[in-house]
């Protein structure tokens, strides 16, 4: 009864093999201590893996259009949350405020606390 887009199943084992390969890449990459390599190996690969799983295992590519949009909207809200919260929680000082004891130095009598722009 559904719009059975599921008539064709790709070769899942092949996709699985690719995923495992990517996993190895990320682990090996993390061995190197060059920061950027580690980050790409870690998160770039994670994104690719997530994409592969979503596309091939969850068939999100042949699902109704609005479904991926819904999921992306949820991620967007999280991004908004991050953007709104990070300036306070992530930073240790901002306009006319600073955290201590993390930044004891910022406590000088007189004058606004150090700005970090």
């Amino acid at each position, binding site marked *: 009864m559904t719009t059975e887009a599921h008539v064709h199943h790709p070769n899942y084992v092949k996709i699985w093999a690719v995923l495992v390969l990517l996993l190895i890449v990320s682990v090996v990459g993390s061995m190197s201590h060059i920061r950027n390599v580690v980050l790409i190996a870690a998160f770039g690969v994670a994104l690719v893996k997530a994409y592969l799983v979503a596309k091939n295992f969850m068939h999100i590519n042949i699902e109704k259009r609005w479904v991926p949009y819904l999921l992306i*909207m*949820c991620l967007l*809200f*999280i991004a*908004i*949350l991050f953007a*709104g*919260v990070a*300036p*306070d*929680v992530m*930073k240790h000082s*901002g*306009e*006319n*405020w600073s*955290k201590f*004891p993390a930044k004891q130095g910022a406590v000088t009598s007189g004058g606004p606390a150090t700005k970090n722009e």
Partner: protein
Amino acid sequence: MSTEVQHAEPGIFHKYFFSTDHKMIAMQYLFTGMAMALLGGFFAYAFRMQLGFPNQHVPGYGIVTPGKYNALVTMHGSVMIFWVAMPVLIAAFGNFLIPLMVGCDDMAFPRINRLSYQIFLLSALVLLSSFLVKGGPFGGAWTAYPPLSAVGAYNLTPIGATLWLLAVALEFVAFLLGGINFTVTTMNSRAPGMKMYDIPLVVWMIVLASIIFMCSAGPLIAGAVMLLFDQTMSTGFFDPTRGGDPLLWQHLFWFFGHPEVYVVLLPAMGIVAEVVAVFARKKIFGYKTVLYTTWAVGFLSFVVWAHHQFVAGIDPRMANIFSITTLLISVPITEMIFLYIATLYGGSIHLDTPMLWALGFIAEFMIGGVTGIFLGSSGTDIYLHDTYFVIAHFHYTFVPIAIIAVYAGITFWYPKMFGRMLNETLGKIHFWGTVIPFNVIFIPLFITGTAGDQRRVYSYAQFAEQSRPALQHLRTTSTIALLVMLAFQFVFLFNFFWSLRNGPSAGPNPWRSATLEWTVPSPPPHGNFAELPTVYRGPYEYGLPGLADDFLPQSVPDQAVGD
């Protein structure tokens, strides 16, 4: 258990306690909500008495000590929002109306629906149990800012705080389950022929409210877990000395807390739309525009949260952004209200009780809306933040939402729910007896707020400027008005229960309304529709020219109309 989903009448116990019938679950939510409302009203009575007549023995409660006062205001806020507004507006009306209005026999997942109520009931019991534990219920305000809420040594109610948190978390789970069910039912289970723009506004708005809740509650659920660990496992998520940050909770809370305002507002708006259309005998002015504004409000409600935190220590540069978004959200809301008013134009308005309530909602909510501008614009919020101006402002929104609109809904659908009419005279007495005192309660509080009365303070004795007699008179006035308002609620309760037996029988469609729920007998039988309807047109076809009757039900085929 599965037997009652088949349309056979189940046994009494199953019928009233373990039913999966959406109408019964709606009733369970409605009566639980009403019971909690009485409780919340009693709390308000107790602490308003303390403010109106300081340090005197409150009849039926006793002396209100500082600790008790904090617990009372905290519980009043939590109960009224989480255990009254949401269960009644979303769960009760949603459960009762959605299957009937979209023309199917039940919710898509009746057992998930039942589970949702059972979890909700549990959450209510957990909250109430906090009154029995050592130290008493939580007293750290419904916003529960850490470290106060996180450290027992600070709030002196370690057990109460944890129970409060658990109760809120459970309540969220209940409404996630319920909301997902509403959404799925409306998306998938509509009657054949009911297109997107044939769905009644109240259904639209309850579903959108559920979706907003779903998207905003997540981070706070995560936050609740963190706070729970801070309370019980001595972690430091919100403890600055261990790398945490108290502001984090405030952000997570208000990222949910502000959309929450619209979660309860939208169903109220929907109810009012239905009532206004029926009693003005008018099509809603610009149905689609109302819908678009609703979507706009829904989205914008996610980008305004920090206007609750202007002076809470957030980076002042952020305040500007949130101040602008806050005034942005006033744009679609204004449009929506204007459209509702415009709906009256060219109608023939019957001022029955439901219509009085609906019009009362619009009139009062506008006051709540405009006073929000004072608080949304960062400059003035510096002074007004956490004063009684805020209290008056959001009561001018929440009372219209959770009291006035709910009464509009109950008086409007009572015949459908119970098959009998309410008493019109008592209804009108109750209306005026509620709305007039309501204004007398909160207009003085606007003034005390502008005079600098701060919130959540059991006595102003310590504050020379606040303990001026003039201000005390205002507080006393508002307390007395509250007593009057509470007294008139018993008129409603009497009317409600008396009419259950003695009201005149209603018949299927007493208000001559066009939506689907009025095509079935009142109260609707198990399974709702004898044969499931097909929909041919939008929900608000009133006053069509060249017809014998002045309304055209959604399920009447065009050839039967003969055009």
